[in-house]
C-alpha cells in the first residue's frame, strides 16, 4: 500500500523533492524508485522497498487476435464494463454485450470507473410503509461486474477509496460492491497528455491493486495476475493464454521505464506544496485570488477518482422510498450549509482552501496513507475555470497565481 512509502517530510524525501523541484517529473519519478516491484512481475526489486511481499503469480500472454474470444467468455460469465466509443470520439465506460464493442485503442474515459463502485445516484436502503410501520431494506443490486481496461491511476484510486470506506466506520454497501468487482487493468505504455501519475505514485504501471494487469506488447498482451481471483480468472481461460516468456516480461519492464520518460507538461510537485499547505504558509489572499477563477461547477469532485463526498436524499420510487447516496461537491456553497442558515464555508476561497488541504496536506497524508490525487489529469480537462490540481499546487508552491 502506498502508506508504506517514505513519509514526504523525512530529510531524504525532502532532498529528493527539492532536487525534483527544479527537474522534470520524469527524473523525479526515476529518483523515487522506478522499477521497483511488489513481487508480482519479475522486474528489478529495489532494496529500499519496504512493501509486504505478495505471492508471485504466473504471468501469461495472450495474442491480440484471441482477445475477443476471452472477452466473449467473460461476457458469458459476468457483466463486463469496458471502454466504448461514445459520440464523436468520446470514450465512455459502458456494459458491453459483444467483444467488438470494446474500444482497445483508448486513452482514458472522462467519467472515471469509480462510478461503478460509487454511482452518482446510489440507492442504499428502501423504505416501505406497511400496516403502520416501516420496512427498511438494504438495497443490493447483486452486480458482480468485471471492469476491463481500467487505467493505473483509476485502480490506485480504487484502493484509496476502499481505504476511505473501510476506516473508522466501514461502509458495507461500498465494500460489498468493491469486493465483488473484478479489476482488469491496462497499463499505460503511452502516458496521456494531461496525466501526471508519476507525481502521485499511481502509474504509469501498477505493482498492486489489480486482479489482472494487461500490458500491450505490440501483437500480444502480457497478463499479470495480481490476486488469487485474477490468477483463477486466467487459469479458467485455459489455452487462450500461455505462460509468459522471460523476454516478454523483460519487454513489459522496458515499456514501464520508457513510459516514465514520455509524460507531458503537467506536473505536480506535491512534496513542497504539502509542506506549505500543512504549515499555514499559503495566504488567504492567494486563496481568494484563485477562487475568483472557479465557477463552482463541482466537476473536479465528480471526475476525480479519489473524491467520494456525498449527500443523502430520499426519493419516491416504485411505491417505496429510496434513501440514496448522491455525489456532492465541496465546492458548492450548500455543501456545508447548516439548518440554522449558517455556513462555515460561505466564501468560495474557504471551500477551495479546504479542498486542497484535504487533498494535499501532510495531516491527511498521514491519516489516509496517500495524497488525495492519482494524477489522472481529468480535473485539468473538466474545470470550467482554471483551478485544476496542477495549477493550484503550482500556485501553492510558488505563492503566486498565474491562472
Amino acid at each position, binding site marked *: 500500500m502506498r502508506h508504506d512509502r517514505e513519509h514526504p517530510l523525512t530529510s531524504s524525501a525532502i532532498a529528493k523533492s527539492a532536487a525534483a523541484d527544479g527537474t522534470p517529473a520524469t527524473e523525479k519519478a526515476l529518483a523515487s524508485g522506478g522499477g521497483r516491484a511488489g513481487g508480482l512481475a519479475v522486474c528489478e526489486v529495489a532494496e529500499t522497498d519496504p512493501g509486504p511481499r505478495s505471492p508471485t503469480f504466473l504471468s501469461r500472454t495472450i495474442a491480440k487476435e484471441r482477445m475477443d474470444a476471452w472477452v466473449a467468455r467473460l461476457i458469458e460469465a459476468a457483466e463486463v464494463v469496458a471502454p466504448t466509443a461514445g459520440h464523436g470520439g468520446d470514450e465512455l465506460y459502458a456494459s458491453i454485450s459483444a467483444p467488438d464493442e470494446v474500444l482497445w485503442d483508448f486513452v482514458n474515459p472522462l467519467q472515471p470507473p469509480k*462510478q461503478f463502485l460509487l454511482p452518482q445516484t446510489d440507492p442504499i436502503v428502501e423504505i416501505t410503509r406497511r400496516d403502520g410501520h416501516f420496512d427498511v431494506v438494504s438495497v443490493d443490486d447483486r452486480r458482480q461486474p468485471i471492469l476491463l481496461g481500467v487505467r493505473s491511476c483509476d485502480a490506485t484510486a480504487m484502493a484509496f477509496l476502499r481505504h476511505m470506506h473501510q476506516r473508522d466506520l466501514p461502509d458495507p454497501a461500498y465494500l460489498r460492491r468493491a469486493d465483488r468487482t473484478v479489476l482488469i487493468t491496462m497499463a499505460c505504455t503511452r502516458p496521456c497528455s494531461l496525466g501526471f501519475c508519476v507525481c502521485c505514485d499511481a502509474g504509469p504501471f501498477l505493482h498492486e491493486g489489480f486482479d489482472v494487469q494487461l500490458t500491450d506488447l505490440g501483437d500480444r498482451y502480457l497478463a499479470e495476475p495480481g490476486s488469487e481471483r485474477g490468477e483463477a480468472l486466467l487459469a479458467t481461460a485455459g489455452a487462450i493464454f500461455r505462460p509468459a516468456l522471460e523476454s516478454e516480461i523483460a519487454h513489459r519492464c522496458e515499456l514501464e521505464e520508457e513510459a516514465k520518460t514520455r509524460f507531458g507538461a503537467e506536473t505536480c510537485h506535491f512534496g513542497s506544496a504539502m509542506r506549505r499547505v500543512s504549515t499555514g504558509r499559503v495566504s488567504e489572499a492567494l486563496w481568494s485570488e484563485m477562487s475568483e477563477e472557479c465557477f463552482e461547477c463541482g466537476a473536479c469532485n465528480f471526475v476525480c477518482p479519489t473524491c467520494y463526498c456525498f449527500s443523502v436524499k430520499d426519493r419516491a420510487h416504485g411505491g417505496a422510498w429510496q434513501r440514496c447516496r448522491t455525489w456532492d461537491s465541496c465546492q458548492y456553497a450548500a455543501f456545508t450549509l447548516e439548518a440554522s442558515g449558517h455556513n462555515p464555508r460561505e466564501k468560495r476561497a474557504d471551500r477551495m482552501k479546504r479542498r486542497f488541504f484535504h487533498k494535499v496536506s501532510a495531516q491527511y497524508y498521514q491519516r489516509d496513507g496517500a495524497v488525495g490525487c492519482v494524477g489522472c489529469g481529468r480535473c485539468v480537462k473538466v474545470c470550467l475555470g482554471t483551478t485544476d490540481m496542477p495549477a493550484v499546487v503550482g500556485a501553492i508552491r510558488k505563492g503566486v497565481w498565474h491562472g
Partner: protein
Amino acid sequence: MHTVLTTCPFCSCGCAFYLQTNDGTLIGTAASENHPVARGRLCARGWQAHEAPSWGRRLTRPLVRAGGALEEASWEDAIEAARVRLLAVLERGGEVGVLGSERATNEESYLAVKLARGALATGHLDTPLGSTFRALLGGVARVAPGGVPVPTIEELEAAEVILLLEGDLARTHPGIASAVLRAVRAGARLVTFGAVRTQMSRLAAVHFPVAPGAEAAALGPVIACLLAEGSAEPSAAARCDDLEALRLSLPPAPGGGSVADVARWVAEARRAVTVLVPAGAPDDTASAAAAFASLAALAGHLDRPGSGLLLLPARSNLKGALDMGVAPVGGPGLSAEAMMVSLRGLIAVASDPLAMQRGGDGGSQARGTLECLIVLDAFDSASARAADVVLPIACSAETEGTQTSAEGRVQLVRPAAPPPGEARPGWEVLGRLLEAFGVGVRPRSPAEVRAEIARVIPEYSGVTEAQLADGWGSFTTVRHETGRFRLQPIGTPPARPAERPHLLAWDGPFDWGGDPMVAFSPTLCRDSVSWRKLFPHGQVLMNKADADALGVRQGWPVRLVSEHGEATVPVGLSEGIERGVLIAPVACRDELGAVMSGLGATTVRVERP
C-alpha cells in the same frame, strides 16, 4: 448502465452531455470531451441534469376539472375536454392565447404556433421571457436592419476585446463565462458594464458601474472618445448613417483615463465581441443593444469575421421558440405579461404563468380573468394545480427534439428514459390537440415536424438529420445583407425625482430557483430553499454605504415607496451594488411586486419604517 448524448436543458450555451440510466431510471450525468461547446465541461446545473426528472413531482395522468376538483381522465377525454372548453370560450366572444416555453423543443414550439394561429386563430402567443430577448434583437435591428452574423463561442474565446453587459454571467451562463475567462487568460481585454460587482467584473480590465436603465448612456463617453480620436474605422464609419444625430447626443469625450483606453482597444482590435444579456425593461434593453451595436458598427466589428454581437437568451431554447414564431403578432398580439390579465382562455405549454406573476398578490388572484386554463407540462406547478385540463408531457430527458443555442447551434435532445405514468412527448400531445381542432393530421415523429420546419423556416433549411444525428448539430443560416448601419442616438436616462432618488431593479429576468429543473433537483435546490427559509419575508439588497447613511443594519426592515406602491422588507447589505441602486430578487416578487411595475427598474424612496 446506458448512456445517451443529449443537449443541456438549462441555459442557452448549448452544452451537451451523456445522461446515464439504470433500468430506465436516470442516475447520473457524464461530460462529453469532444463536444465543441462543452469540451468536457459542465456547470453545476448541467452536472445535476439527471436529478429533476426522477426526483421531481411529475404530472403523470391526464386530469380534467369537474365539480371543482381535478380528476383523472383518459387521454381521449382530456383532449376532448380541452377542445370543448376552449371552443366554448371562443363562442362566448372571449379571447384565447398560447403561452409557449423557453424549455420546449423547436418541434413543440412549432406545433404550439400552429395551435395558436391555425386552431385558435389567435395572435396571442408568447413565452414568459420572450420580451426580454426580442428587445435585444430589436435594438440590434434598429442599427442593422439587414441582420448581422452571430459570433460563435469559439470566436468569443479568440477575441482580443470583449465587452460584456451582464447581470451575473458566471451564474446565468457559466459556459460562456468560462469562455470569457479563457479569453482573458489568453490576453483578451474584458470590459464589463453592470449595476453589481460580479465575478466577471473582477476579471475585467475596466468595469463601468451602470445604473439599471442607463446602460446605453454608459456607452456614450466611449463612443465619444472613439469619434473624437478619429479612431473609428473609416470604411466602417462610411457605411454608417445618422452619425451627426449620434454625435449630438453624446457627452464630451473624456481626454484620457479608462474610457479612452476602452475606446482605443475597441478601435484597434481585429476581433472584438460584445456579449449582451437581457435585463430590465424591454425598452432599456433595446436601447442598450442599439448603443452597443452602434459602437460596434463604428469600429467595424458588426460584421467582421471573429467579431460581432453575441446575444444571450436567458434559457435553453428561447431562441428556438422565437425562431419558430412563438411571439405576439404586432398589434393585437398580447405578450406573456398581458395574457394573464386579459385573456379568457390560455394553453400553457411547459410554462407556469401563475408562478411567474409579478405584482399584486401573485398566487391566489392568479387565474385573473381566465375561464379556461389548459396546461401541458412535465412537472407539477401552480398553474397545473389551478388548471381546468392537465395534459402530462415528457421532460427534455425523455423526449426527442431540437434546441437552438445562443450561437445558433441546433442540437438534438434525445430520450434517455421513458416519461413516467401516462405522460407522452409534447410533440405528440400537441399533435393530438391540432388534430382535435381539425388542423391537419398529427405528426408521426419529431423528424416529420423538423422536415416541415426546414421547409417553412428559411434559417432552418440547412439543418439535416445527418448533422443532428451523427455530428454536433447544425448552425442556423442567418441571413444578413452587408448594407448600411443606422446609428442610434444615445438617450439620457430620465432623471430621478428628488423624492425618489434610488433605483430599484430586479436581479434578473427570472429566478432559477423557481425553475422546475432546479427546484426539483435535490442538489441544486438547496441554495434557494435555504435562502427562502432564511428570508421568509423577502429581502431587498442595498449598498452598505447607503444603508449606513440610512442608519439600518443587515436584516433590519426598510420601507420602499415608489409611484406604484410600497413594501416593507428586510434589507441585505452588499458592497458589490452601486450606490443609489437597490436589487430586488425575482424570488421575492410576491413581497416586492407592489413597488415594481413590469421588468424595469423603478425610482424609490427608502425609509426606516
